[in-house]
């Protein structure tokens, strides 16, 4: 409905009064039409709503601002290097090649990276009860890997810690696979499988995985503190502190060095376990919602 000139004038005056009351709730705005004076009590009630939710938690404010400052420096660095993208890419490639092939540090880093693909570990694959499988529940040797398919219940019985599961899953996701990891290099007195992974997938191929490690980070007073995590890895592009079920945690933005982050991982402590949920297919909000539902 089109406003008349008179209504527009009254609306402007009420708007001015609203702005005045938002700055000073005790103000007594003037020049209002007598019929509109009654609106002031409604305005005062609405102005109280934000106050009713309480002040911003200083810890939250610090966390966001740290994130802003960290990302801002990263973004400006990226933008600077993006001025001449082709030359920058060539220069980076040459530097990486020289560093990897010539320096001891580079060779160590390359060796560490390659070790990810060859951990010398024994993989125990476990299939949930509702997933049909033609493979028997007995262990099979395939090259250097021991694979063992079993039900989720059997997996719970086998791993040496209480397995946790998320009670919230994004729409369309279901448990696809449970995998236990046994590391033969560890001393015999360490119970195995040492860690476990739950893989959830959707019909469109999207995946999210949750891993559980019965380990403690750091030593002495730092023991088991999430702050003792190594956040210097080249693949970690951003870190944000978060709260997960009352425990400190971090959300990591991960991806190849110099490229846009590809996936998010939330890492936190719960029930003497280090838990990590990672995905390239969910928003950070969904990821945290899933983490906070883990029981």
């Amino acid at each position, binding site marked *: 409905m089109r*406003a008349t000139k008179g*209504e*527009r004038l*009254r*609306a*402007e005056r*009420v*708007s001015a009064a*609203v*702005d005045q009351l*938002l700055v000073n709730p005790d103000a007594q705005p003037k020049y209002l039409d007598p019929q509109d004076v*009654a*609106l002031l*009590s*409604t*305005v005062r*009630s*609405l*102005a*109280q*709503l*934000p*106050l*009713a*939710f*309480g*002040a*911003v*938690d200083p810890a*939250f*404010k610090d*966390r*966001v*601002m740290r*994130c*802003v*400052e960290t*990302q*801002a*420096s990263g*973004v*400006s660095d990226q*933008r600077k290097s993006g001025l001449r993208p082709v030359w920058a890419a060539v220069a980076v490639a040459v530097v990486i090649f020289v560093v990897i092939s010539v320096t001891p540090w580079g060779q160590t880093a390359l060796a560490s990276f390659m070790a990810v693909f060859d951990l010398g570990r024994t993989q125990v694959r476990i299939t949930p009860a509702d997933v049909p499988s033609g493979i028997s529940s007995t262990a099979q040797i395939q090259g250097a890997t021991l694979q063992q398919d079993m039900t989720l219940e059997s997996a719970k019985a086998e791993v040496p810690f209480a397995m946790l599961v998320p*009670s*919230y*899953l*994004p*729409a369309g996701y279901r448990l696809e696979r449970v995998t236990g990891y046994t590391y033969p290099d560890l001393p015999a007195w360490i119970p195995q499988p040492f860690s476990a992974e739950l893989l959830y997938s959707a019909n469109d191929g999207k995946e999210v995985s949750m891993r559980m490690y019965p380990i403690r980070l750091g030593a002495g007073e730092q023991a088991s503190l999430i702050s003792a995590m190594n956040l210097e890895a080249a693949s970690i592009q951003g870190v*944000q502190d*978060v*709260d997960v079920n009352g425990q400190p945690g971090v959300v990591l933005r991960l991806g190849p060095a110099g490229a846009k982050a590809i996936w998010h991982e939330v890492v936190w402590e719960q029930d003497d376990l280090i838990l990590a949920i990672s995905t390239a297919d969910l*928003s*950070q*909000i*969904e990821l*945290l*919602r899933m983490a*906070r*539902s883990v029981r």
Partner: protein
Amino acid sequence: MGRADDYAELYREYLPRILSYVRLRVDDEDLAQDLTALVFERAVLKQHTLRRPEAFAAWLFRIARNTVAEHYRSWRPTMPLESAAEQTTSTPSPPEAVMNREQVDRVRAVLLKLSEREQELIRLKFGAGLSNQEIAAVMRLKAGHVAVILYRALRKLRSWLEEE
């Protein structure tokens, strides 16, 4: 166009207003904080799209609106109803500090009777404390039109609150 770190102070200044706006859109403090953090993460990444520094508020609140809208589009609750109910009731109720729970619920319930555009305008005005010009830029309206929509919304709210 400025660098993201040039805007650190502005981000600090706008953080409470963004959180306040988001709190009026979602009924969960943890979620409100997560979404607010996400708004700032996105803002920094999109800093280069801010062409006019004087449009900072409108630009930032557009990101906030889109972030919350995207959350609602993607959010599909699949947890059992019992768990959802438990989670809702276990959330602390900060509003009790200033307005009692009943008053807050009453005002929020009445707000929901407004059209989506009127609700958004009320959130931007009273949650974020934006001027009519800033709201106009966020919602892509004329400032004069914002005043009229606000005026009509306040009259409706006044009438509904009196009825109850």
